[in-house]
């Protein structure tokens, strides 16, 4: 039993170490890949543009429900004019980065992991190696960079659409004053709050893309292996995003 635990822990440490070495290689090869922007822009399209509709629909409804909840609760204290800043802060600092990262892991992360995994299964990665083309450079790095660039942009869109959702609920539906909604928001949101959201989105983008690329690149070359890689991408991304979210928030507050 203790031996099993030790083995599991040892396996975790090995995998973690190997993934960090892989991360270091991705970073080391990134400048070379950035010199061929077409490789990256294709992946920004795959990971980012193709997730847009999902992100915008979800952003709108998350913003709307925040507007609704905050209105009904703040109204009890006569503070309904705080709906604007409340929704903006909630979206910018927490819901925007976190929910977008979770959706991104489910939509783009799984696509990345299964795509790379299937390339492994069908020997496409070995074939590249045999053609003296490094698959890390040609396949892994562009997808990693594409994902890492896309997520902050998606977070910005999610948050903006979310604020629009909160506005639609607060102003036309609940009868708040439009001018007060915006001016209170401007008053209540500091630059540091915006930065917190931006930093979170950058960190989450790197983490989720790294996890997806790593899982796909190192999956077992079987049908089951690809399935497991996609599942693990979502599960590990979710856990890692929530842990980082807590850590960054804690650092920002202290």
């Amino acid at each position: 039993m203790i031996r099993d635990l030790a083995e599991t822990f040892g396996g975790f440490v090995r995998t973690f170490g190997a993934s960090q070495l892989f991360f270091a290689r991705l970073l080391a090869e990134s400048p070379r890949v950035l010199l061929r922007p077409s490789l990256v822009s294709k992946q920004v399209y795959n990971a980012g543009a193709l997730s847009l509709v999902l992100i915008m629909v979800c952003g709108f409804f998350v913003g709307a429900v925040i507007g609704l909840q905050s209105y009904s609760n703040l109204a009890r204290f006569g503070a309904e004019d705080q709906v604007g800043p409340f929704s903006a802060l909630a979206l910018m600092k927490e819901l925007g980065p976190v929910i977008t990262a979770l959706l991104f892991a489910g939509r783009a992360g799984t696509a990345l992991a299964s795509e790379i995994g299937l390339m492994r299964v069908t020997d496409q990665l070995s074939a590249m190696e045999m053609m003296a083309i490094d698959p890390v450079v040609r396949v892994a790095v562009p997808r990693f960079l594409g994902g890492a660039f896309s997520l902050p942009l998606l977070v910005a869109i999610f948050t903006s659409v979310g604020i629009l959702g909160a506005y639609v609920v607060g102003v036309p539906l609940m009868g708040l004053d439009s001018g007060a909604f915006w001016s209170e928001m401007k008053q209540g949101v500091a630059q540091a709050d915006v930065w917190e959201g931006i930093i979170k989105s950058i960190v989450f983008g790197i983490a989720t893309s790294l996890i997806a690329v790593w899982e796909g690149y190192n999956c077992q070359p079987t049908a089951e292996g690809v399935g497991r890689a996609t599942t693990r991408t979502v599960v590990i991304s979710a856990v890692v995003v929530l842990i980082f979210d807590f850590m960054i928030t804690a650092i920002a507050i202290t």
Partner: protein
Amino acid sequence: MLSDNVVEIEDLYYSRGPREIFSGLNLAIRRGEVTAIMGPSGTGKTTLLRLITGQLVPDRGRIRVDGEWLDQLRRAGLYSLRRRIGMLFQNGALLTDFNVFENVAFPLREHFDLPDRLIRHIVLTKLHAVGLRGAAYMDPGELSGGMARRVALARAMATDPKILIYDEPFVGLDPISMGVIVRLVRRMNDALGISSIVVSHDVQELSSVADSSYLISEGKVAASGSPDELHNAQSELVRQFMHGMADGPVPFHFPAEDYTAQLFDDGRVPKDRTDDS
């Protein structure tokens, strides 16, 4: 001065987990010839190819390819060696997000800075050589197994390698496609003056195409010589393999515990098979 052998393997040992795949394998592949590497399924023929191309590292022993010892090469050296080797994977391993044309153009675009007109010229020439110029703008998914392998052959030849390696090129092909591939192997070898290594267990096809052959079994070379010599060899194992007999030195039954004992035991699964869900 390069030696007559394009690949030399000395005293090769390799094991995967507890299973020893090669134990003291020696072989030499001559320049300019088509060499067949045969062996029963599971003898590690594909593993041998991966060792020759440096995708795997041997536990012991040395491998020399085109005059260079693999263990002395660093990553860049290995990659520059691989540019002289073309490899045909069992299923073709075409890149699924490109069409046929782009697949063949892929190594050219990655390695050389060539004008589009020239790339087009080279790609169409290579596709013409395998008879698939008409399929240039099809997607890999639309190709039959034999066509995919021919495209992969065109891609392997795109950068004019000195060595072509075929991993099970005849598996799962209809007789016509098989005939086409057999002819291509021979023709490419002679027309381009390269060396070819064909890994397979299709004895008939290999006999018609190979200059010399190795039969690998239990981690060693069991027999070598021209296909005719192997056909007439006296060794039990070689005879079993070349004539396709079901039982012999390679037994029909996978090793198992005593039949009677197993029929009457309590139906438990062997210990090393239970923890693996």
